[in-house]
């Protein structure tokens, strides 16, 4: 009897609790400034570099009357969450993006604040950054973004111990890579770790091989709407080489079940279960967070191998030129935002980024490299990027957002053999280019 009498009250308490929880979730779960709460909200892609963004926000809040709040969204969901809230009252004041194609739709929808006025008041907001990087966030002749992380060339990382055991050197050419794959397979490790479940890591192999074999011009042609580019012999050759690499067992068999974003492929390399991983330069700071011991002692890196007979300059790199902070037109505190953006070329910012292996693109970067925590790694990246005749922007960032999902499907399906070369070419030709 006693328990029976207690039950309704229990249910009532539970229901109240559930309601209260869901209500409070409504309150702070939107990751942005709902009404004007007298703060500026900064929305950032959630990953290991967030600790620096946090540090800079704290620094800003020390002196500013208008406080800044850092909101992060886990990487895999960033883009869709951003696009859903950006034209609503929940939109942030300042947000992370990839420049170029990633902000074009927002500029078109008249949501972003051109930074001309900021720069007029403080020319350093432009002059303190490398022009080639700054210009990637210029749309229709107006600047819309301030570089806020490091430049991110994609590098071929490796586990030094695994390579040593198999008697393999970091490959300089494609043939050396194929030999390394065989040697590592004989050792019983997966030659190359790949987070195929995320698909964009798979895409990196396409980006580099197309650039090495055809040069950057072919992809530039394709993205301008010339669909015949995908049928070019160079395109077919690149696809054939990808096929050969996959069929040689370079990625093992279960790469589509592995992810980078949940730390899977990262752990494979760190624990010595795989030899290589092709990844953006943020990989170092990710390893430093997940497996600090390995990052300091066992992590090696090299540039993407050259391909004999390829038209592309072997010094070309692919990746993301940088990430940017863009400002929404509707922000109520433009002066505070301008002050915040000025921190993106401060000495403290540059030092903090360099210490986790991110190579900033400010004009004062060079003078801090030697005193940073990882001078060798920073110097390697710096030279690589500075000497590269062309920097291929990640395909899914170069194409309009609406193409990304179908592009990822085609890439995954070609890689795992569901599509043949002709099927892949057709799928890429069907992508919208504007």
């Amino acid at each position, binding site marked *: 009897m006693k328990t029976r009498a207690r039950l309704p009250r229990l249910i009532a308490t539970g229901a109240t609790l559930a309601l209260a929880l869901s209500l409070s979730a409504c309150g702070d779960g939107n990751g942005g400034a709902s009404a004007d709460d007298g703060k500026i909200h900064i929305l950032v892609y959630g990953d290991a570099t967030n600790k620096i963004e946090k540090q800079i926000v704290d620094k800003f809040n020390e002196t500013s009357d208008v406080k800044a709040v850092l909101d992060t969204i886990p990487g895999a969901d960033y883009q869709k969450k951003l696009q859903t809230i950006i034209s609503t009252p929940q939109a942030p004041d300042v947000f992370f993006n990839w420049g170029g194609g990633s902000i074009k739709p927002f500029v078109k929808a008249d949501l972003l604040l051109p930074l001309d006025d900021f720069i007029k008041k403080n020319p350093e907001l432009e002059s303190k950054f490398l022009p080639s990087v700054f210009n990637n966030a210029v749309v229709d002749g107006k600047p819309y973004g301030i570089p806020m992380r490091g430049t991110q060339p994609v590098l071929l990382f490796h586990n030094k111990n695994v390579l040593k055991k198999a008697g393999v050197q970091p490959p300089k050419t494609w043939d050396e890579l194929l030999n390394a794959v065989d040697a590592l397979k004989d050792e019983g490790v997966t030659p190359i770790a790949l987070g195929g479940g995320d698909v964009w890591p798979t895409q990196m192999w396409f980006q580099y091989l197309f650039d090495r074999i055809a040069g950057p011009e072919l992809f530039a042609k394709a993205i301008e709407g010339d669909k015949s580019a995908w049928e070019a012999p160079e395109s077919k050759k690149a696809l054939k080489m990808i096929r050969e690499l996959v069929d040689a067992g370079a990625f093992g068999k279960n790469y589509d079940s592995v992810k980078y974003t949940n730390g899977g492929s990262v752990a494979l390399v760190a624990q010595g279960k795989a030899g290589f991983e092709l990844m953006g330069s943020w990989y170092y700071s990710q390893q430093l967070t997940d497996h600090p011991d390995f990052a300091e002692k066992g992590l090696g890196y090299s540039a993407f191998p050259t391909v004999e007979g390829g038209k592309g300059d072997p010094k070309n790199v692919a990746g993301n030129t940088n990430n940017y902070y863009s400002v929404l037109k509707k922000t109520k505190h433009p002066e505070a935002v301008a002050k915040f953006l000025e921190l993106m070329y401060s000495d403290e910012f540059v030092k903090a980024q360099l210490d986790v292996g991110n190579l900033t693109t400010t004009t004062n970067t060079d003078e801090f490299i030697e005193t940073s925590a990882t001078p060798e790694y920073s110097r390697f990246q710096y030279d690589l990027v500075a000497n590269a005749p062309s920097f291929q922007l990640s395909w899914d960032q170069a194409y309009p957002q*609406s193409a990304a999902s179908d592009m990822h499907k085609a890439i995954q399906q070609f890689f*795992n053999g569901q599509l043949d070369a002709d099927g892949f070419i057709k799928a890429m030709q069907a992508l919208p280019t504007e």
Partner: protein
Amino acid sequence: MTTKITSAPPAAGLRKESRRRPAASPSISTVGRPGFAWALPAALFFTLFAIVPLVMVAVLSFMSWNGLGSPQWVGTDNWSRLWDDPVMLKSVWLTLLLTALGVVIQTPLSILLGVWAAGYQRNRAVLSVIYFIPLLLSATAVSVLWRALLDPNFGIPADATWLFGDGNLFGEQATAIGVLAFVSTWQFTPFHTLIYQGAARSIPQVLYQAAEIDGAGRYRQFFHITLPQLRNSMITSMILMIVGGLTTFETVLILTQGGPGTDTTISAYYMYDKAFKGFDFGAGSAIALALVVAATIISLVVVKVSGYDKMRSSMEGVS
């Protein structure tokens, strides 16, 4: 009836209720059934959070919108594109397959468990509570849990290669579908078990006592008394499974992202893919509306065919 309603002059002084059901009104009002006012709060919420969005989705399915700026009318463009889309067709088959798998696997399991849990054996209550646990977890938590458990390099497959081979569970269509079916079974069987447990408990004991006197064994009792008596619960549970299956989403989102390629892209996920990854909210809305219509029709058909709508009592054979 409809002509009567329209022809009735509004100022006739009749009460709203009696206008709707002229013949039945006296008996109903004498019984004292609560008026419409009682349903108002629920109706209001339902209108605000279900009907209004549904209408907006219907309108949006004839527009082109990427989430920014204002939507443009495009007529039936979204619908004709959808009709010619091979992925859409594939997604419909996959949805039906997963739904069917759910019904076929979960029904026998939950009947057996439910009937067992309805008994009065020793330790039954403790075990029942344990079986019930998966239902208390959110579908998201369950999916994240299984995604980690089935990781090819750091999960169970890495230590049980004799069973999982290379562990490429999410990389092949057959195994990816298998994982999806398994995880939903793991999560939802307890719920259906609960339905059957309640139903089996309400079967009058006299039936079993009579059967025992007549010399019927356990199996005969199960097939000739328990199963027929569970018929209505079975239909309830199956309708819930079908509707649940057609609207499955988060399991796919977290476990497979519709992959490899489009091999587990069920319709609900394809809707999400179109709307929130490709930012084609028009096409997404068209899929959403098609899903609503399809789920409604299938539920209606099941109700009609099973005679659920004419159901009176589950106490057949008692009186």
